[in-house]
């Protein structure tokens, strides 16, 4: 498997207003293979979102290199789409227009069939003409996913994508995501503080430390799908990761 993303010794700090510097990431290296699903799990405020910003090209590292498909990461591009908890589906156009709008410079026919395919893939074919404010939180997040996939990115970056959903909708989105992955495998980097979510979805889990961020441990999940959270291996994995994160005692 070729590495889609290769970060080596990445450092990032911010200038504070009082003149000091806040070191967010100190010498972090990671590889993500093609079609692999990687989850980054860490405490809130540890710099997970900054890391995704760096990987997707929204920010530049102070030092170190980030290679994407063998080339240094430049500006953000449709080759790596970032989905966040806030949601960025354009609220002034319909679900359908959200998909066709981002398909720039494609022949009309290809656009329509592509948009149709992805709207169906996320189960929103009956809501093509609905506006985002008419959709539920879960549907909105599915639309967000469809809009990301419609441009056929090489990588999907997800920053707490289901963070604003209720517990039930979040479980459903996991199943959706796994189903979509079975149909169309996609290199994915998921940032989350939900250990269950990471175990349910990822091939590998990177456990991250408090700021300044470093990788404490890389875990191969190695449980076949469909995974059950009651699986003894999942239970053991969860408690060991929570232990790493200091969320449970000895």
């Amino acid at each position, binding site marked *: 498997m070729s590495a889609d993303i290769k970060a080596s010794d990445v450092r990032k700090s911010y200038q504070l207003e009082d003149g000091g510097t806040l070191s967010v990431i100190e010498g972090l290296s990671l590889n993500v293979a093609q079609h692999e699903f990687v989850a980054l799990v860490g405490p809130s405020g540890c710099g997970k979102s900054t890391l995704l910003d760096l990987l997707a090209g929204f920010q530049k590292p102070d030092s170190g290199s980030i290679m994407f498909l063998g080339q240094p990461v430049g500006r953000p591009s449709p080759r790596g789409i970032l989905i966040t908890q806030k949601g960025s589906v*354009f609220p002034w156009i319909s679900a359908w227009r959200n998909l066709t709008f*981002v398909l720039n410079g494609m022949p009309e026919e290809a656009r329509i069939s592509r948009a149709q395919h992805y709207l169906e893939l996320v189960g929103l074919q009956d809501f093509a003409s609905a506006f985002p404010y008419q959709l539920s939180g879960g549907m909105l997040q599915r639309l967000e996913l469809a809009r990301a996939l419609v441009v056929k990115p090489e990588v999907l970056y997800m920053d707490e994508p289901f963070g604003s959903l209720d517990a039930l909708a979040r479980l459903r989105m996991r199943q959706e995501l796994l189903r979509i992955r079975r149909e169309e495998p996609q290199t994915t980097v998921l940032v989350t503080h939900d250990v269950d979510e990471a175990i349910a979805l990822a091939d590998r889990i990177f456990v991250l430390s408090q700021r300044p961020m470093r990788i404490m441990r890389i875990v191969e999940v190695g449980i076949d799908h469909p995974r059950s959270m009651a699986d003894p291996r999942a239970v053991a994995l969860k408690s060991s990761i929570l232990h790493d994160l200091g969320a449970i005692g000895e």
Partner: protein
Amino acid sequence: MLGTIALAKEGVLVHHIAASLMRVAVGYFGAVALAIPLGVAMGWYPPIYRALNPVIQMLRPISPIAWIPLAILWFGVGNASPIFLILLSSFFPMVVGTIAGVHSVERQYIRAAENFGITGMKLLRDVIVPAAMAQIVTGMRIGLGVAWLVVVAAEMVAINSGLGFLIIDSRNAGNRYDLVVAAMVIIGVIGFGLDLVMRRLELIDSVRWRYVR
């Protein structure tokens, strides 16, 4: 009141209302055509904002009335003077509203557009303007209110038609305060009607989403 009915019957009233509305329409749409593109450019490109904002903020507090002598000097006593004053006075609330609208566009939409490779005119036209539209429309409502306010003042000087002229002429031609008050009421009613028309703009897709909870 009888005088008003007489005026209406003679078609004089319609003539004055039409004259005022025509001036407002020309001046106002001229201001829209200038203020919205300029506001978008100023809101989006910081160098343009830094260069032009001081000029705009300095001109903005000058009452349109203060411009009347210059307007007459530059444009004479025809229609051009009041149209200029309307354009000038409705321009400012719209340009300020548009700038504020562009400045308050949520970062996640700008980032998404960047991520999908949407740039240049397409970015401005299809992302920034719709995201800012609610505030642009608010500016347009205020702008139209100001335009209607100013047309009356402008018509009291250097022109012989319109509702402003009707007011000043009614007083001068024998203290016809019944006509003065009638004209004032008509101004109020038309202003209300214009705002109702403007509120229809809140139903367009790029505005409505802001108001849905």
